[in-house]
Every structure is written in structure tokens, then in C-alpha cells.
């Protein structure tokens, strides 16, 4: 008989308490990663804690800021944020049908290394709202994210808050062959103050980012040591693609800015 228990959490504290009290539990948002890893037997949870019924976790609204709940699907974000960086970055993740399941929180906090969902949040200096032992805590994504979203046991991403701003950006996503694939390298560049923000996914084993005052060579000097060989591409090829993407982005953003 299956030992796994499925819980539907009805409030934030309940969800947090369940996770901290149960052995080998996982949170469930879109379930796309959890089902895949369970099938491959690389994840064997004793409990699934479904977050989808929590108040505010599926909200998407634009008032002073853009507020997105962690269980909002990527397709819903794309539809709401047409013509923006969010659409451009998220439309490459998975395929259209799978994006009806993949959630922002699941993409950022899941086990896959790409976590492309975090790139616009870092680029736009968004805040993340995390449910913790002591309640909801809001902090800058750039503070909360270091290789992954830094969460204590039981904590989960509740919402993200993005400032409304007109930001010039260039997003380049390289894949092996077809359009639907994990990225060899996804490069997101924005103009920030007098310099640039650069965020990468797929380049190494986690998303990385940095801000620069200098240009292409300074960026390459910073990122090149981080490149990792994987099944999709060698680090040399990734660095080659990164250089192309950064060069294109800098030229385009300089023109836009002029």
C-alpha cells in the first residue's frame, strides 16, 4: 500500500507547520517536476503538500507594483505581461502545454538547475515574499537568491513583487536544436544605472548574475570561470555563445540608449 499522503494546505501557517513536522515532504505547485522525478525514482517523498489553495498564491495583479503569486502558471504570466521582459523570458521555458502546469514558484524553487524564472526578478530588482516560521517576509530577490532561493526548512515562496518600470533589455536563449528544449545558455542583459545587469541560466549548474560598469571583456572575465561542461554543450562553446549574446546585447542597448 502506498505510504504517501497528499495534503491540501488551507492557510500559510498550516502549510509551513506541515512541512516542518513531516518527514520527507515536498511542496506541490504545478507538480510537473515532482511527477517526473517520482517516476524516475529520484524523488521518493512521504508527503505532498499542495499549496494551490492558499489565499493570494495564485494572484496576479498590477497596481502600484506587479504582484505575482508563486502558484501562477507561466502561461498566465505570459498572457498578463504581454510585450514585456516576463513574456520574452518565460515563453522559452518548456512548451505551451507544459507552461499550463509550470508555476513561477515551482520553476524557481524546484530541482532542475535552470530556474529561468528567476532571471527577470533579478534583472528588475524584484522582491520575493517568503512564508517563514515567523510569517511573511519580503526581501530583495538579489539578497534572497544565491545559486538558489535561500529558504529555511518549511519556508516557501509566496509571491513576487516587481516594480513597474520601463527597462531596456535583451534576452537571448540558445538551445541545441529545436525550439523546445532546456537552454544551453540563456542570457538576459539590462541597462542598469550607467552599467549593465547580466543574468545567465544554463551556463553553469545554477543561474548566476552580476552587475557591471565595464563592457564585454569585463563581463567575460567574470563569467568564464563559472562555465561548466554538460550534456548539452562544452564550457568553451557556452563561453562562445555568451560572448555573442553579450556583444549583441551591449550594441543593441547602447543604440536604444543613444
Amino acid at each position, binding site marked *: *500500500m*502506498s505510504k*504517501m*499522503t*497528499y*495534503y*491540501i*494546505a*488551507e492557510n500559510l501557517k*498550516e502549510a509551513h507547520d*506541515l512541512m516542518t513536522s513531516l518527514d520527507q515532504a515536498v511542496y*506541490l505547485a504545478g*507538480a*510537473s517536476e*515532482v*511527477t*517526473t522525478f*517520482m*517516476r524516475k525514482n529520484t524523488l521518493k517523498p512521504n*508527503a*505532498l503538500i*499542495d499549496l*494551490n489553495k492558499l489565499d493570494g498564491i495564485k494572484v496576479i495583479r498590477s497596481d502600484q507594483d506587479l504582484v505575482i503569486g508563486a502558484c501562477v502558471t507561466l502561461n498566465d504570466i505570459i498572457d498578463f505581461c504581454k510585450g514585456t521582459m516576463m513574456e520574452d523570458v518565460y*515563453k522559452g521555458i*518548456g*512548451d*505551451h*502545454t*507544459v507552461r*499550463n*502546469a509550470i508555476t513561477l514558484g515551482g520553476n524557481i524553487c524546484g530541482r532542475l538547475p535552470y530556474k529561468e524564472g528567476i532571471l527577470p526578478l533579478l534583472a528588475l530588482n524584484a522582491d520575493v515574499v517568503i512564508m517563514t516560521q515567523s510569517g511573511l517576509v519580503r526581501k530583495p530577490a538579489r539578497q534572497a537568491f544565491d545559486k538558489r532561493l535561500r529558504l529555511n526548512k518549511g519556508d516557501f515562496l509566496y509571491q513576487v513583487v516587481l516594480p513597474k518600470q520601463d527597462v531596456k533589455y535583451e534576452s537571448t536563449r540558445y538551445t541545441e536544436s*529545436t*525550439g*523546445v528544449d532546456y537552454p544551453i545558455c540563456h542570457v538576459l542583459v539590462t541597462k542598469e544605472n550607467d552599467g549593465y545587469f547580466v543574468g545567465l541560466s544554463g551556463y553553469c549548474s545554477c543561474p548566476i548574475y552580476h552587475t557591471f560598469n565595464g563592457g564585454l571583456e569585463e563581463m567575460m572575465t567574470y563569467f568564464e570561470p563559472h562555465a561548466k561542461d554538460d550534456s548539452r554543450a562544452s564550457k568553451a562553446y557556452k563561453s562562445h555563445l555568451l560572448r555573442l549574446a553579450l556583444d549583441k546585447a551591449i550594441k543593441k542597448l547602447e543604440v536604444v540608449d543613444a
Partner: protein
Amino acid sequence: MLKFTGYNQVDLNVNGHTHQVILKADETLLHVLRDKLGLTGPKAGCENGDCGACTVLIDSKPMKACMVVALTCIGKSIVTIEGLDNTEIQRAFVNKGGFQCGYCTSGFILNAYAMLEDNPNLSEADQKVWLDANLCRCTGYEGIKEAVKAAKEMIKDQR
């Protein structure tokens, strides 16, 4: 808090009917539909969310049933290929030869059906975005594209 442990009898709304099904927490919707309800339209292709052969509609949205925990479907409306009856897209697939072995066909039809219900005037580029979620090893996709085009025309004429 709702809790489901071991075997649970739940109601699932599939193709407009309420079915009482015994479910475990780790069962995917694909296996519940095929093995417990006998609805073998959705196929187990890759079981990895890549091929789209398992596509069903959940609350009118195409979803890959191999990646859906069945218990999350309580209170939702599920439609499989068995629940579509003589729709424009089905007739178009027959008329235009949009299939050969038929294994991917259920998934393609449901995805295309949802796409055309959502917006029958979608551009070709946006259609490709939707239909890139399904793979076919047989047809080379031309018959499928012709079928979708024909279904669009039928919908324009009839609605």
C-alpha cells in the same frame, strides 16, 4: 487541511460524468484515466512531459496527464478524446489525413481543439507555439497542419 492517505475514494468529473475512483497520492492522471476508467485515448508516450500523447483538457486547458497528480483534479473538469464528439478538428483530421499510426493523434486533437476554442483566429506563428507541445514520428506534420487549417475554416463558416 484536507488529507488523503493510502487509498481514497474521490469523485472525478471526466467527459461530463462524475466517476467514483479509488486513488493513491502518487498516481498520475494518465494512469487513472487509462487503468481505472478505461479511457485509453490519452497515451503513455514518453511519460516525461515531452511528447504530448497524453494531452487532456483540464478546465479547458491542455495539460499533459503524465505530469498531473490525479488527486489535484478533484473539483476540476477533465476532457479526454473520448469526450469530444464530431468536432470540427476531428472531422478535419479525418478529411486531411492528419494521422498515420494514430498514437499522437488524441493529444494533437485535444491541444488543437483547445487552441481553436481559445482563439480560432490565431496566427500561424502562435499556432506553432501551441502545437510544438506535441510530437509526431509518422506524418512529418503536414497533414496535421492542413487539418488545423481546415478546422479553422470550418469554425469560421459555422460559428
